[in-house]
């Protein structure tokens, strides 16, 4: 019979396949970066410590990177009072300071559009570069636009690597270590909310906000996409986003959509609210309203 020689071959083959499986397993679990939200807790801690060490070295100051998880029973939503906004752009700059956007080249997550009162919300007539000596300008109103944290987010759907997703508390986040920089999400976003690091981002060391979140305002590398996270590093700790806090007109409201007593619920239930580009069925968690 050929059974003897037959068995040797099988044994050799078994050995080879076991070795290959072991090598593959080692490669898959042991080394190499993984998507942040797939990492087991202990490896996430390691990865975060490594980030803190790297940023501390880079900026010469202690940096904390939080991995605060979503709070159960919380879904964030935002409302912006178009009738109150004066177009001062303090939100734009507070956001840059808070979220460690690159100063050169300049990245801004909030874009304030100046519109003419007779024309209504018409993007093709909007001016993002308005620069009058004083705001608000006569006959104009202002519509600030940032990430609308859509429930049907077109951006996360198109990402080829799963580097961006919606967290359980409704925040759309990006894994800066997994994004390959293909910018498909930017083409898919109807609100211009996603921004790319075209060059090496730079932040003066003394301007760095050292309280960061791993899915939010930690310093970003060149060649990846970033966006508004409702100040995830603040809001998951019970604070307001920086843009809400800084607004001198009180035009910005923020809260928990699932809490029936929250201000955001009051606004949605009692005011005339609208969402941008409703016809695209993105279902934003960002509402606009006319408070007065």
């Amino acid at each position, binding site marked *: 019979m050929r059974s003897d020689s037959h068995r040797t071959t099988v044994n050799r083959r078994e050995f080879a396949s076991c070795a290959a499986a072991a090598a593959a397993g080692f490669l898959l679990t042991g080394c190499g970066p993984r998507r942040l939200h797939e990492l087991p807790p202990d490896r996430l801690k390691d990865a975060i410590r490594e980030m803190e060490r790297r940023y501390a070295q880079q900026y010469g100051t202690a940096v904390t990177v939080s991995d605060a998880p979503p709070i159960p029973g919380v879904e964030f939503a935002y409302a912006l009072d178009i009738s109150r906004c004066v177009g001062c752009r303090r939100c734009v700059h507070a956001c840059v300071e808070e979220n460690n956007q690159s100063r050169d080249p300049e990245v801004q997550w909030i874009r304030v559009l100046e519109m003419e009162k007779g024309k209504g919300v018409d993007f*093709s007539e909007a001016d993002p570069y308005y620069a009058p000596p004083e705001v608000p300008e006569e006959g104009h109103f202002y519509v600030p636009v940032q990430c609308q944290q859509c429930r049907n987010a077109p951006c996360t759907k198109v990402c080829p690597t799963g580097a961006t997703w919606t967290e359980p508390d409704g925040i759309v986040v990006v894994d800066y270590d997994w994004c390959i920089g293909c910018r498909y999400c930017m083409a898919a976003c109807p609100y211009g909310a996603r921004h790319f690091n075209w060059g090496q981002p730079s932040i003066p060391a003394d301007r760095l906000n050292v309280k960061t979140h791993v899915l939010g305002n930690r310093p970003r590398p060149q060649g990846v996409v970033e966006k508004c996270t409702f100040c995830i590093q603040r809001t998951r700790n019970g604070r307001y986003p920086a843009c809400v806090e800084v607004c001198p007109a009180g035009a910005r409201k923020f809260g928990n959509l699932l809490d029936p007593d929250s201000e955001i619920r009051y606004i949605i239930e009692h005011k005339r609210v609208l969402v941008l580009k409703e016809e695209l069925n993105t279902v934003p968690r960002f509402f606009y309203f006319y408070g007065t």
Partner: protein
Amino acid sequence: MRLRVGTVRLFSQFVGGSIRQVLRGPAAYWAWLAVLLMLIVSGGRAYLGQVQDGLIVTAMRDPVSWGFYIGNFTFLVGVAAAAVVLVVPAYVYDWGPIREIVIFGELLAISAIMMCLLFVLVDIGRPERFWHLLPPAGRLNFPDSILAWDVLVLNIYFLINVVVVTHIVYMAFTGRHYNKRIVVPLVLLSIPTAVGIHTVTAFLYNGLAARPYWNSSILAPQFLASAFCSGPAILLFVLQLLRRFTRFEIKDDAIWKIAELMAYAMFLNLFLHGAEAFKEYYSNTEHLLYTRYWFQGLGDHKTLVPFAWTAVTLNVTAFLLFIVPAARRNRVMLNIGCFATYAGCYIEKGMGLIIPGLTPDTLGEIYEYYPSMTEVRVAAGVFAIGFLVFTLMLKVAVPIALNEFQLRRGPAGAGH
């Protein structure tokens, strides 16, 4: 065991012989290679600069976040898909004169897909993370992301063509006929796959509701129509060169037939464009902005207008030349028609698809994009790599097909 040694010897003879084929050629061949190498070096240096400084060295910015690279990618997917225009009559209708040149269509498809993949690679911000797309180590967001679909179909199409071409060439080298049971099913499979790569690439843009210029169901059919113009246009140049410089016999009939097919494809292309333009202009909604930016410009922003009308003129010229039998049978007219087709489709995809789709941006800002020198150099380098690969593959495949370069069967086995 003996068979294995034989195979190894055979293969090394094939490789050695191929290298000798590639290293032999007239002055014009070497001049062509030198030009390609220069372009590759220039493109490589530009790309190194881009890797170092980031995509900021391109003219792309947040409002126009895709540009020349992705335009070229889209155009070349069409070129790759076009091999099918030759495969269909050859295998489905068993039309003899075209069958012998199918292999050149497949070689062209291989080179074009290579260029496509390179164009995607030079466009992404973190090329070293390319493996994030590849399971099991990476993660491919399938089936949600159309880009994931595109990665799959492009690679499948690439593999099919590589297998078929390698098999046919290798068998011819060993003096045997190719195995019909392998080739015919694969070639038949390549037909829907070719349609697939271009359809999926169209869906990549088509599926984005944020961009009304792309969000039109006419996009995929229009992509196919223009692909069936531009791919064969290159092929007609190549076939004429082969006929001139090698003993390869390519019948006039085959060339005229391809030109005739191109005329129909061009008609369809123009018709679909016209249908889209009618809808936009007559309904005159806010979505007209993007079409107006391409054909008329918006206010003082008129960068693309000359490109738009050049493309229309070239495409109409090509159609007229190819639809009149006397014109397409005239060698000069034929070549003018090929050039017009190629250039027209290239402008229409390279400049006319991506840039107006993103201008004005989603919040109404008009950023006038025009490719930077780095982008032009890198793109030229990618094209040069593609043409180099195509040239070298032809250099090996043509003599094999002509039985000039074959396994030497002597009593001593290999070699002299």
